[in-house]
């Protein structure tokens, strides 16, 4: 903990002086040949890696209008340069979104454009060298694909698309990232990111039933593989055991219980996360998503509800229709899929839950908009519902709610610092420094508005904050699930 130079929280986040190469040495662990093989990628750097990488880049550009337009269109205006939390936290100019894109763009220009072939020095085009490959591995694993930069870009250039493509190229030449690829292997083999096999999952949930019974005196069920249930809950596996995630899971269960909605989790698809998005592999992403469709059909459920997980909600909301859609076998009276916050908000609006907000009177709560929820999805039926729905749920169960600086919430929200497949200890320095802008805004409301808790609806955010808050002298217990607040405020047994 001590060997990381933790930034000092001030009244604002200063735009740092450039420190070229500050983070060049930081690289996540590489995937082992076994992890690579499980996903169909070469185990180690292939001999003709240069040709393979250039060919793969061409294929990706052919297959993605976004990538093609974005590699052509940047005018280097600089609007994005002070928007990335990793740049603000590390001062390394290659963590400026445009500079990160340029690592790939300069190679694209060299091999795929006339200007770059004829006058590389003029247009900043370069050959693909080992140094470039090395930079790709460093800096494309210092992007959490949060898309904050794309909000401010006059052309909507989305660095996440570039970073996903770069990781896909790296995988194709045999240089994968251990964290993401090992986890994807577990999903394929066992069904979830944690590698929690079915008996262990059942055991965990049975234990949870006992705990909740002990705490509340009420029999609240955590069902697994119940055929014919109304709802299939797809939630991040961290919800099954990690703190503070598990209190969110208890919250969902109490909501289902009180509303009288039968539900189940699936042992086959016991994971909402889809890390294939992070590595840019559409094929893997489809495979991981297909488990959910298969499970929903096998369990004959009417609805799919997604738990508190940011990128999972993006994949479900924005990509499922392409990957595994249409979900027309589900009940058309509900959004397909539906977010747990939408479900809870609807129940509260109809008065179907009896709530006692005084249970949360000891808290002053703020809300962290998770990047994927904020900038890639919606909740409810109006644009911006992804911001209003969770806040509405929190306000219903909690009397004291304040927002952080408007420039750091909504679609301008800062990433927690651990998204996009970077939630690994080997990137701890990056995670601590990247959390700076969010924690500066949090610290300000802690000081000025006496905020005690920050609620989140993303498993990655919750884990990341729990880990990095202590570096900044803030208590890790500040982070709570939105559905923990809900669960604590629900009056059980008070059904109409």
């Amino acid at each position, binding site marked *: 903990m001590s060997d990381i130079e933790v930034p000092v929280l001030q009244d604002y986040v200063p735009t740092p002086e450039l420190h070229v190469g500050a983070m060049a040495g930081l690289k996540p662990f590489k995937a082992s040949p076994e992890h690579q093989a499980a996903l169909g990628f070469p185990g180690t750097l292939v001999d003709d890696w240069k040709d393979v990488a250039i060919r793969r880049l061409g294929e990706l550009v052919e*297959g993605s209008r976004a990538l093609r337009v974005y590699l052509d269109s940047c005018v280097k205006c600089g609007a994005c340069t002070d928007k990335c939390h990793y740049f603000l936290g590390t001062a390394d100019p290659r963590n400026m979104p445009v500079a990160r894109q340029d690592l790939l763009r300069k190679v694209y220009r060299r091999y795929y454009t006339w200007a770059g072939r004829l006058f590389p020095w003029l247009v900043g085009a370069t050959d693909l060298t080992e140094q470039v490959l090395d930079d790709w591995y460093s800096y494309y694993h210092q992007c959490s694909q949060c898309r904050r930069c794309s909000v401010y870009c006059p052309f909507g250039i989305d660095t996440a698309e570039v970073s996903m493509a770069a990781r896909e190229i790296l995988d194709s030449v045999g240089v994968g990232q251990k964290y993401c690829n090992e986890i994807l292997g577990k999903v394929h083999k066992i069904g979830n990111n944690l590698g929690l096999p079915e008996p262990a999952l059942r055991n965990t949930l049975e234990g949870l039933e006992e705990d909740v019974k002990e705490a509340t005196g009420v029999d609240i069920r955590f069902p697994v593989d119940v055929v014919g249930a109304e709802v299939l809950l797809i939630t991040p596996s961290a919800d099954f055991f990690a703190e503070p995630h598990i209190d969110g899971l208890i919250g969902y269960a109490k909501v289902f219980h009180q509303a009288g909605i039968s539900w189940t989790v699936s042992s086959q698809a016991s994971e909402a996360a889809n890390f294939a998005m992070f590595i840019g592999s559409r094929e893997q992403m489809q495979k991981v998503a297909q488990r959910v469709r298969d499970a929903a059909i096998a369990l004959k459920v009417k609805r799919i509800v997604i738990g508190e997980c940011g990128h999972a909600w993006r994949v479900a909301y924005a990509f499922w229709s392409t990957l595994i859609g249409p979900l027309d076998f589900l009940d058309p009276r509900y959004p*397909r899929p539906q977010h747990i916050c939408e479900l809870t908000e609807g129940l509260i609006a109809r008065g179907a839950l009896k709530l006692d907000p005084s249970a949360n009177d000891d808290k002053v709560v703020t809300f962290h908009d998770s990047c994927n929820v904020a900038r890639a999805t919606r909740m409810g039926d109006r644009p911006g519902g992804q911001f209003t729905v969770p806040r509405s749920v929190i306000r219903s169960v909690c009397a004291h709610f304040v927002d952080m600086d408007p420039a750091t919430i909504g679609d301008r929200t800062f990433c927690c610092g651990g998204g996009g497949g970077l939630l690994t200890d080997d990137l701890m320095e990056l995670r601590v420094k990247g959390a700076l802008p969010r924690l500066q805004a949090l610290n300000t409301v802690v000081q000025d508005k006496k905020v005690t808790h920050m609620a989140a609806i993303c498993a990655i955010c919750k884990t990341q904050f729990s880990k990095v808050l202590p570096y900044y002298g803030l208590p890790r217990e500040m982070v709570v699930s939105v559905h923990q607040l809900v669960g604590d405020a629900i009056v059980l047994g008070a059904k109409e």
Partner: protein
Amino acid sequence: MSAWTLAYAVLLYVAFVVLVGGVVYRVAIYAMTPAPLRIPTMPAPRTKRGVALRMGREVALFASLFRGDKWAWIWSYLFHASLLLVLLQHLRYVFVPVPAWVVYESPFGSYAAFVLLISLAGLLGRRLMIARVRFVSAPSDYLMLVLLLLIATTGAWMRFAAPVDIVGFKAFMQGVMALDLKPLPASPVIMIHVASVGALMLVFPFSKLLHAPGVFFSPTRNQADTSRLEAQAEGSVAAADAQQRDPGTAAPALREGVR
């Protein structure tokens, strides 16, 4: 007919073909490249009309840039707006007779040259002075601004400081368009002005100037928020009806609020 006249006519023909052909080719490629996944930056409009409005705000007002960087917005907005006025003013070399609205626009188009010069200086200044922008600038980024400054300076020079034979130049332009060449007035300033415009046209389809057509094809901005299968309207009506008839026996699913 002088060699200069021939050379400049050829330059304009080639530049025109490269500009139009190059941009059409590029746009065709953009249009044909698949965009399988829905990636609009949210909150995004839910209808085509909403997308058109969003794109209109981007193209006409540079809405995202305004949120991102006020100084960059000021310089680039002034640059693009004054360039547009100046270009409209130049339509007098294209149309015979000159349409009335071009005549009325003419003073605006003339004086916009000064705004053009100031904004280009602003853009160049921030590229040189802001370390973050300097870090991401290639030689071509500076040269592009220098080229535009050259075009604007020579143009303003001819308009306000040292008038040239614009009647003769118009005859040359008409000749070029009619494929019946007339002599190019022997003025070095005209020659520099036209040559640099030709150069800009030539580099357009091979450079970052592709941002102009590119923005219309940007999936984060031109996709509607329609990827989810939403609850069907008749479903929610039926649900609301059911509850109104008999709130007590409405199924839990209906009570919770079908959207």
